[in-house]
């Protein structure tokens, strides 16, 4: 009884789901570093000042993810649940700020974006200061989900706003929201001072391969 499913393939898939693909003989990092090595002076400067400063700034960004209070649709029920006492996303610095857009750096798109809402959502996004992040929550925000046949629904919020993390589900349960927040924090850890993310491939590496 020989299976035609390659055992190594399944192994690789499990591995990739667990910690991302392993590097295959390529030095992985920011493109500049891979392609054009920096001068010794620059590297020394980065090592002594640049990297600790980046770490410090990113540490500040990590635990002050204040979401805007814009509820696009019904997924806000699960945001309410995850802000409640059982799951408590305030542990991760996600504080329902209820304040000005100028103080927010996270937009949780809680569900369907309709044609009427889309320009307003873009307006809100434009008012937020950099660096800002967007989490698309639920099938409707990712791709339109149930509303493929609807005349009034935007098929995925990434058409108008760059999305950092996608959470599948309809609605995603509160623990899945927490997972997404943790993933977003992973992404922020890899940011440089200007707020650019190094690369998505970089994120997929297991932590031991990452530059610090």
């Amino acid at each position, binding site marked *: 009884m020989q299976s035609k499913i390659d055992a190594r393939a399944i192994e690789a898939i499990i591995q990739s789901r667990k910690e991302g693909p392993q590097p295959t003989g390529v030095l992985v990092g920011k493109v500049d570093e891979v392609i054009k090595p920096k001068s010794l002076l620059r590297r020394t400067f980065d090592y002594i000042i640049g990297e600790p400063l980046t770490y410090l700034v990113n540490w500040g960004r990590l635990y002050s993810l204040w979401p805007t209070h814009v509820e696009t649709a019904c997924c806000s029920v699960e945001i309410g649940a995850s802000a409640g006492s059982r799951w408590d996303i305030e542990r991760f610095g996600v504080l329902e700020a209820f304040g000005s857009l100028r103080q927010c750096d996270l937009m949780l798109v809680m569900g369907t974006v309709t044609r009427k809402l889309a320009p307003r959502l873009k307006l809100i996004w434009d008012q937020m200061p950099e660096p800002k992040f967007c989490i698309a929550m639920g099938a409707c925000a990712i791709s339109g989900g149930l509303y493929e046949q609807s005349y009034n629904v935007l098929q995925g919020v990434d058409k108008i706003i760059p999305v950092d993390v996608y959470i599948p589900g309809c609605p995603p349960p509160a623990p899945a929201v927490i997972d997404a927040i943790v993933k977003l924090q992973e992404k922020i850890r890899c940011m440089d001072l200007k707020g650019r993310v190094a*690369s998505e491939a970089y994120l997929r590496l297991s932590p031991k391969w990452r530059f610090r």
Partner: protein
Amino acid sequence: MKDLIDEALKVAPETKCSIQGNRVKILAPVESVIKIGELVKRYGFDHIESVCGTDYPADNTIEVLYFVGSVREELKSKVVILGSRIPRGEPIFPTLTNIWPGAYFHEREEYEMLGIRFEGHPQLARLLLPDDWDDIPPLRKDFHVKKWGAAEREDAGLKIERAVLHHPPPECIPSADDFKKVRNPSFLERFQQAFDVPEYDTLGRQLFDWVQKDERTIAISFGIQHPGSGHMRLVLGVDGDTVTEVEPDIGYVHRGKEKMCEYKNYFQNIPQLERPTIHDSTGMIFPYVLAAEEILDIADKVPERAKYLRIIMAEFNRILNHTYWLGIMGIFTGHSTMFMWAMGDREIIIDAAQRLGGARVTFAYLVPGGVRNDAPEGWEDYVLKACDKFEKRLDRYREIYFENPLFLDRTVGVGVLSRQDAIDLGIVGPALRASGVYSDTRKDEPYSLYDTIDFDVPVMMDGDSYARCMVSYMEMYQSLRIIRQAVKMMKPGPVRYHFRGRVRGKVGEAYARTEAARGSISFYIVSDGKEKPYRVKINTPSFRNLLAGVKKILPGHRIADVPVIHWSLNYWAVDADR
């Protein structure tokens, strides 16, 4: 009911009348609709439920139906369906808002969705559709929705080949594109253009003009990005700090469910129909399932155990809805402890419900013919324990919230709705019962074995925000009582009628209503004998409550009271927009 029909026939002899159970359908010629409407109102039907238009291109007509219920004891279980057929090319119908003022927004919705012009309507304007809508009314049968999916997926670069990939693609080498945070500039450009168009907020401007009656009044926008508004906007006319006029601007979550229903069969409709109120998902599809069973002709084949499981799930959802609502009410009254408590205790009920339904909020548990799965082993004991635990927690709310002077100051005497207004405007649910009307569909027209269960309906006479909170709070105790009884009365047995072959509906129509957490909710389904429904009308409590309620209640109050009144009506914009 016979005498009503006789009188209607006297007014217009060509009226067609039919009685089907508790539903009386009167199809009158257009000229005599107002006279018969007055007759029906005089007879005692004073509580407007819904207005529904159905397009029949085959006959070249549009059928307009008014669903009218009553709050009188002897007529509570009955519904009069009054309507008429009008030509499709020239759809003009006399407005009935003079008879039932609650029909105001229902008529505006049908004007937009089917293009029916209601003559004499005070403000016939757009309600739900986006500002840049330039197509024919969407519920006309010649409006076809095409699937957006395939082309969009190609855009996103999602190739089907990806599905058979064994190894994940070698993405370890970063490309220059990874540095760009903005991934799809063409769409951004398109939306940038949308801002350049000066007419992008046309309806909003119209509403601003409406509320700005004189020079002293300032129009302000309350929403859509406002902590107290939710997914909708209230355009307030303000004189100093006092609200003088309100125009709600809704439709930000309008997803066209009624049109989508026509493309799916009776089972495929279930997931999408419970989305309007996901924290009350079972309450939302309960009437749909009852109506669909009537259409599929299996209403008497539903097993008894399934009926009890439905009741338990519906009552779970009632508690989930009320606790969520109470938690947000805590935030609006500046009491964040209440939010934390309500959200934490909600999880006790979610734990019990997810063991049965397999999800945290959207269970998709009810189907035509029964429920989808039986309870797991030991679940009954778990539920009884959870009920005890939750009831202990509920008792504590009284001392921290309902007897707290800080909460009383914000709510007592704020947003008073009189009994007569509540009936005239067609208010439902806790808001109606807080105004002193004893009306609960579970008692009025018992469905699904609710008549075998002993429970009370809390009613308060004050009609203010506090009364509405208190009614909802007391309803949770009654829900626990119902759950305990139902768990004990359940006997082992089958839970689902097993369909064989293709599922087709019979030709006809069904109107079912149940009591969801936010109030009476009803579905009107027309079937033409095919696998998919011909027309589904969803009539949600939020649409009836806020739109009529806010326009009546809010003027005269301070801006600071707006969120409290708005939320005490238990409004959920997704529910209203559908």
